[in-house]
């Protein structure tokens, strides 16, 4: 379930630190039981175990529409998780009950054929090794199908990939990893006050030399 907060609760949360950028994880007491909720923008609260299933709805309908649909939360907020370690634990709990980010995904080998796309605001993206023509270790991409879907709909890439919203995506870098390259797949988790929901692929060790195919402007072939 999701709920909008009373203005007094919103004001209270605004006076307290975020758990992570863009959201707070809180413990509420409702009908003599306690539960954990994710609160976005200090206004809209989700039961933590349902949060993953509502992300797609938010991506499609937008925050404000969901806010207007939501009933009021009749519960008292008992605690805001502000400790970074606690927060990470809480987020992981949400991920494991719904979807998970790429960092929590199992490692697999590339098949040598699949193409991955890295979106960037920067033409000189420093994660792209233009000398060795590969992706540097510890870098994220999305899949080709998710990129094409995002462009075709169109979805806002900042929302879909939960990017800091001051960034404007202008460039797309295409990679075709070899079958010795390792990757981890997942779904972008909410961050930066964005819902996420796109596919993300993490290359812990980067990709091998010669796997960078081409750079284009975002959305152009």
């Amino acid at each position: 379930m999701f709920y909008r907060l009373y203005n007094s609760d919103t004001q209270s949360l605004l006076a307290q630190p975020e758990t992570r950028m863009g959201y707070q994880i809180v413990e509420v007491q409702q009908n003599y039981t306690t539960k954990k909720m994710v609160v976005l923008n200090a206004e809209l609260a989700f039961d933590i175990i349902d949060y993953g299933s509502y992300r797609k709805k938010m991506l499609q309908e937008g925050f404000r529409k969901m806010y207007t649909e939501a009933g009021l939360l009749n519960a008292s907020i008992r605690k805001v998780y502000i400790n970074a370690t606690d927060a990470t634990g809480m987020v992981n709990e949400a991920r494991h009950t719904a979807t998970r980010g790429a960092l929590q995904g199992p490692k697999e080998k590339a098949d040598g054929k699949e193409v991955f796309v890295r979106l960037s605001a920067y033409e000189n993206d420093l994660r792209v090794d233009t000398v060795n023509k590969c992706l540097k270790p510890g870098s994220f991409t999305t899949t080709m199908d998710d990129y094409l879907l995002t462009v075709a709909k169109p979805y806002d890439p900042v929302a879909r990939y939960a990017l800091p919203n001051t960034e404007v995506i202008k460039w797309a870098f295409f990679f075709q990893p070899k079958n010795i390259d390792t990757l981890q797949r997942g779904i972008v988790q909410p961050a930066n006050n964005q819902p996420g929901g796109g596919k993300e692929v993490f290359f812990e060790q980067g990709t091998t030399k010669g796997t960078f195919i081409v750079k284009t402007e975002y959305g152009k072939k």
Partner: protein
Amino acid sequence: MSTLRINLPEPIVNKLVSLPETGMGYQLVKVFLKGGKVLRNLKVFNSSILEVSANQSINEAEIERVELDS
């Protein structure tokens, strides 16, 4: 809230490029200033551009080191 962007010095950029991203295109970092203050949960874009709120008003010369913020 207005923000400022600071181009990080090359040694820090080189370090950040060698560290994993938080999400596509950015890293969350803590910044250790020479005066001993630590600024947490700041964003760095493209491993090279630090975003700080305008009221933090730090400059490149004040930065001692940068680490990933978990």
